[in-house]
């Protein structure tokens, strides 16, 4: 059988996975950690601690601030110093809990042994409760609360759990390393999620990670859970995009504005699966994750994969990793295609932190914009089948109706258009703006429709 891939668009950047051989090291503890209250998609968490409180590793320090939100736990033991706003990596103020580290005392409820727990619990509700209580969120980038994703709305049935091991972003190697070093835990995590959803599981890994494929295949065979299979995908960005992965594995497309569950798919990252394993089998909340420190043309001793406590400042990570190389012109949190530029190294790591990436001026400086030559490379590259050149023009013209008709709101912001544009036109910058405006129009329309319906209902009630 041929290798799977998604059906439209995509680009083939050099995968640059220089840190692929670097085994995961445990990052030492800093003196102070800053735990963000907004490190998941949805409403920020509400702090439950006050300055002066003593906390243990794994203790709850914040509760969900809404339905789509998550618990936050202390990654260290020590004393809460402050609960105050602090700048995130883009420089926006976000509520943080500042904890001075004292020793390393863990909540006794957490099983810290290395022993593998292979028996899957039977009670689905208890599993979901544990995942929720441990603050597990999707670690593939969107940080969507995992328990919400594992609870399909009434009437929707999961037909396939797709475990995302594609790691299609260049440079990143953290998923690659956990698939090599902790494959069994990932597989058990997947089996737990399978139990909740009651559906088969496909583990999708791109062909450029043969060691990870072999390691995961061996773990699946050894553990012998039913209906679980590793499938090899072509190397192609953005294969790990949720919609693209569903297309690649199930040959189904999620309708515009729809959810993966509409086509029977649930996608979870391999790192999330590991977090689910730790939460359900070991009672360990999501307080650690793996990130890659890497860059182009930097010495080997500056390349690392770290197991870090969530809340360690980026500056500490960088310092431990040997400092910022002189050639670095841009620091990025995440991959080179979808990551965010770091404007503030004092910002803290969050649940979804996957890397600190150094790019040189030559790699990253944008070239001056020239005329569009209508080559259509942006449309060829768009994995959503959009026409970025057209959306760019419509954005400049301010034509919101036409932007909506041409599906600007479907943009997944993967960056393929700008990556492949020979004229270096800031297509994605403009389309992102356009998407925001169109989404605003759509939301306003929905709100107006809802208000009108309610008013009509109220009027009908009054008549009675």
């Amino acid at each position, binding site marked *: 059988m041929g290798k799977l891939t998604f059906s439209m668009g995509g680009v083939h950047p050099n995968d640059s996975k220089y840190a692929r051989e670097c085994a995961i090291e445990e990052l030492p503890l800093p003196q102070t950690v800053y735990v963000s209250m907004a490190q998941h998609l949805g409403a920020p968490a509400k702090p439950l601690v006050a300055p002066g409180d003593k906390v243990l590793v794994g203790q709850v320090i914040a509760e969900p601030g809404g339905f789509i939100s998550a618990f936050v736990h202390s990654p260290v033991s020590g004393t809460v110093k402050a609960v105050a706003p602090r700048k995130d990596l883009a420089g926006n103020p976000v509520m943080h809990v500042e904890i001075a580290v004292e020793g390393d005392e863990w909540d006794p409820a957490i099983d810290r042994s290395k022993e593998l727990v292979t028996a899957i619990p039977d009670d689905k509700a208890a599993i979901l409760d544990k995942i929720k209580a441990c603050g597990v969120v999707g670690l593939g980038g969107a940080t969507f609360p995992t328990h919400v994703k594992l609870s399909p709305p009434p009437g929707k049935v999961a037909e396939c759990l797709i475990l995302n091991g594609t790691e299609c972003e260049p440079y990143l190697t953290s998923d690659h390393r956990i698939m090599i070093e902790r494959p069994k835990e990932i597989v058990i995590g997947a089996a737990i999620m399978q139990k909740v959803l009651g559906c088969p599981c496909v583990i999708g890994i791109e062909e450029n990670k043969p060691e990870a494929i072999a390691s995961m295949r061996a773990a699946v065979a050894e553990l012998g859970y039913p209906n679980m299979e590793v499938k090899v995908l072509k190397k192609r960005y953005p294969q790990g995009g949720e919609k693209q992965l569903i297309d690649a594995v199930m040959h189904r497309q999620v309708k515009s504005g729809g959810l993966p569950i509409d086509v029977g798919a649930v996608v979870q990252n391999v790192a999330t699966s590991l977090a689910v394993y730790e939460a359900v089998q070991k009672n360990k909340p999501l307080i650690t994750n793996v990130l890659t420190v890497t860059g182009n043309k930097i010495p080997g001793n500056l390349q690392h994969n770290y197991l870090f406590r969530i809340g360690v400042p980026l500056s500490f990570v960088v310092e431990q990793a040997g400092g910022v190389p002189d050639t670095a012109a841009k620091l990025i949190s995440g991959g080179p*295609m979808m990551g965010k530029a770091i404007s503030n190294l004092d910002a803290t790591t969050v649940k979804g932190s996957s890397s600190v*990436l150094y790019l040189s001026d030559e790699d990253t400086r944008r070239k001056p914009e020239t005329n569009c030559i209508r080559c259509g490379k942006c449309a060829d590259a768009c994995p959503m089948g959009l026409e970025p050149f057209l959306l760019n023009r419509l954005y400049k013209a301010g034509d919101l109706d036409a932007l909506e008709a041409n599906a600007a709101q479907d943009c997944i912001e993967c960056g393929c258009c700008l990556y492949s544009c020979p004229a270096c036109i800031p297509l994605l910058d403009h389309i992102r703006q356009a998407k925001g405006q169109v989404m605003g129009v759509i939301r306003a329309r929905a709100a107006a429709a809802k208000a009108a319906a309610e008013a009509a209902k109220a009027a009908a009630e009054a008549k009675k």
Partner: protein
Amino acid sequence: MDKKYIVSPNPHIHASVSTTSIMRDVIIALCPALIVSVLAYGWAELLVVAVSVLSCVLLEWAVTKWMMKRPSTVGDLSAVVTGLLLAMNLPSAIPLWIVFIGAFVAICVAKLPFGGIGQNVFNPAITGRVFLLVSFPAQMTNWQPTPGFIPIPDAVSGATPLSALKEAIKSGSTIPEFMSANNYDLASFLWDAGASAGEISAGALLIGFVYLLIRRVVKPWIPICVLGTMALISVIFHGINPDVYTGVQFNLLTGGAMLGALFMATDYVTSPMSTLGGIIYGIGIGLIAMMIRYFGSYPEGMSFAILLMNCTVPLLNMWFHQKKYGRA
């Protein structure tokens, strides 16, 4: 952070492709055909190419600098491509001042007034050529081959095969009579179509086009549709009456069909963005070119066909879009 770092939105890396790199690929792709034509037509051909390219580049540089007061765009090499394509559409014996006029029309009428690269509605090189064709018909179609570096097997002097044939049919002779009278051997057209530089070797043009396909600069749909349509129409009409209507080989290998289909119809700027639009555009070019060849008063229809279909591109772009993810 003491040092200043760049902060900008994603993506943070870029494919190693630029307008200049694309134009450089097109220039490389034109080289085989250029070499063949220089070998066949000698110094005169080289001079035509040099004058055409230099005129295009200098005119673009001068106009952007002094009239448009913009940064010069000659660095993107698009003027060089226009110059090469124009030269390849001209006979080698043409007076050089006519070459300059062609370059002037291409750059200063068809390209820059619309806003320069990417903005023009009509293919500049073809606009230049058509202007010369209607203004200087004698110099453009009736000519002596200039002495080349290597002998051409059956060089035709006088008119190009297409115009000679048109005259022959007008005066009442049939195609087979014309072929034998002129010693035409159809197979030899593959390398010698006894016409302007770009028309001389279909083989060399094809090699260049394959290079563009490999480099993913162009997609094959437009040329396939242009040449396929021309072939189909030739088969039908030649089948009906081989005395009056020329056959497939003749039509595909003469009169700039190859140069037009492979290098002019595939111009990014003046062809549709979507694949379906491109297919319709290609079929349209093939159809119009054959209608002109069979029923029009001009011997050769490629240039007019491309220009006419250029007009339809905005409409084709409006009507045809590519398939979107998750939408019917």
